[in-house]
């Protein structure tokens, strides 16, 4: 092993650390990586430096920033993990030093087209996982030393931490923006019905709860409430896809079990790891009857005028993504004039250290057949009060108006 000159390495380390600390205080992501790479190239006296970041969903390393090798980024270089120089580094979690750069040793032709003779690369690790690769190259033959490798690994550590925090922040912002765009704030106007809703994100990472309500071409009212397992941007993305797919299938069939079945089939095929609970209900024009199917979701609460609110008697069906094929049962409930239907996600009724029935009872006691907006307020006051809920809460109320608009044969 080559002897390392401690003085020169330490000197370089100190100056490098000073620079990266200053660089890390800046917020702009691309500039940060570009600056790190410039300094890396300078301190290691290399001709090129590049960062590839791992895209987890595709398993590809994507060239994200480069100094002296901008072509990698501009030409959209993607390297599968396990293949080529960078891919091997990512797969093995180990540095690689190459003395020969050609089609037998690297996958990316830009590297040898550039005239790079020697390459040194290290994995970028954050939270115990490889999130990317950092490499430097020389246009003349060079033996990278143990000191060079150590410096590069230090730089990679800093870069990984910076990328991680940028990504987490970006994800949070993106997830929030996505949620805001998907969970509707304006409810449709429906003759003879009052609609009201609440959506409260939990204090934990953003979840995948949603509600949706829409009129169908044949005059029915479609009502969805759902909860994607997981949290953060990934759950919000899945939620958006499910909401969209369900709407499409709802246009083709007023049978809620068929709609949920198709949704389940689509998710199982395209996103086999996704899991969600969903309720889909179709309320007939005139609002006298509701057909509802459940995919692992809690049944709605129904409050008929003059009666205590109860959990609707709806048979359970399996969650979306569970891998079962059986058709879910559909339950049909009469909705008399003045009755209120309450749809919700488990964040409203689940409390740690409590049996679920207690939460459901509390909900039933809080729901009365009053105007929808007031009913929403009453439920939120009784079940949430001043306690921050850890889980998301989605709540949707649909009330069939009493009086002339109500159907005579209810």
């Amino acid at each position: 092993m080559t002897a390392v000159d401690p003085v020169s390495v330490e000197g370089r380390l100190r100056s490098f650390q000073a620079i990266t600390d200053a660089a890390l205080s800046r917020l702009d992501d691309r500039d940060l990586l570009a600056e790190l790479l410039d300094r890396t190239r300078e301190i290691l006296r290399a001709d090129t430096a590049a960062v590839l970041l791992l895209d987890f969903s595709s398993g590809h390393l994507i060239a994200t920033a480069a100094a002296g090798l901008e072509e990698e980024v501009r030409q959209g270089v993607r390297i599968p993990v396990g293949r080529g120089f960078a891919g091997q580094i990512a797969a093995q979690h180990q540095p690689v030093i190459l003395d020969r750069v050609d089609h037998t040793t690297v996958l990316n032709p830009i590297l040898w087209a550039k005239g790079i003779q020697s390459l040194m690369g290290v994995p970028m690790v954050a939270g115990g996982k490889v999130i990317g690769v950092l490499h430097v190259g020389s246009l003349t033959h060079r033996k990278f030393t143990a000191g060079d490798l150590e410096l590069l690994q230090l730089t990679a550590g800093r870069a990984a931490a910076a990328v991680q925090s940028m990504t987490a922040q970006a994800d949070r912002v993106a997830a929030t923006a996505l949620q805001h765009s998907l969970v509707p704030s304006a409810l449709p106007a429906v003759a003879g019905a009052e609609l009201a809703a609440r959506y409260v994100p939990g204090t934990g990472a953003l979840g995948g709860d949603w509600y949706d309500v829409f009129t169908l071409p044949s005059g029915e009212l479609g009502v969805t409430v759902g909860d994607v397992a997981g949290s953060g941007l990934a759950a919000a993305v899945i939620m958006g896809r499910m909401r969209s797919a369900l709407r499409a299938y709802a246009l083709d069939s007023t049978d809620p079990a068929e709609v949920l079945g198709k949704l389940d089939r689509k998710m199982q095929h395209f996103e086999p790891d996704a899991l969600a609970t969903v309720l889909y209900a179709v309320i007939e024009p005139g609002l006298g009857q509701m057909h509802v199917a459940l995919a692992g979701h809690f049944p709605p609460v129904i409050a008929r005028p003059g009666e205590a609110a109860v959990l609707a008697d709806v048979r359970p069906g399996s969650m979306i993504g569970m891998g079962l094929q059986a058709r879910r049962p559909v339950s049909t409930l009469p909705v008399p004039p003045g009755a209120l239907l309450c749809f919700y996600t488990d964040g409203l009724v689940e409390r740690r250290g409590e049996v679920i029935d207690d939460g459901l009872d509390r909900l039933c006691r809080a729901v009365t057949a009053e105007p929808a907006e007031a009913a929403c307020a009453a439920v939120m006051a009784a079940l949430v009060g001043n306690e921050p809920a850890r889980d998301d809460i989605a709540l949707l109320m649909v009330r069939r108006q009493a009086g002339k608009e109500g159907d005579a044969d209810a």
Partner: protein
Amino acid sequence: MPDLSFRVEMAGDVPVVVTPEDIDITNAAAFRTALLEAAGRSRTFVVDMSRTQFCDTAGIHALVAAHKQAGGDGGDIRLVVTSAPVLRIFAITGFDQAISSFSRLDQALATP
């Protein structure tokens, strides 16, 4: 402070994942790890949930993923579930249709 950790024990050749009182988002990752460990030892294994009083969708998610994986490998997961709240959640989510569950560990182990 309740113990929220998972253990993997061996009952003869069969791994048994023993779950704590609560399973939720805070320990779901540890649950997945324990399930992976059991699956690494045998395609068919038992999850003993007799101590568990609360299991939310994070826990079910971990179980479903493990269950699908086991099925794909030609194996099976068997649950021991005794508490009413957990049975309720499994019934509501339809999970009880997907997986075999028993009320006693010896029953779960006895099935070939």
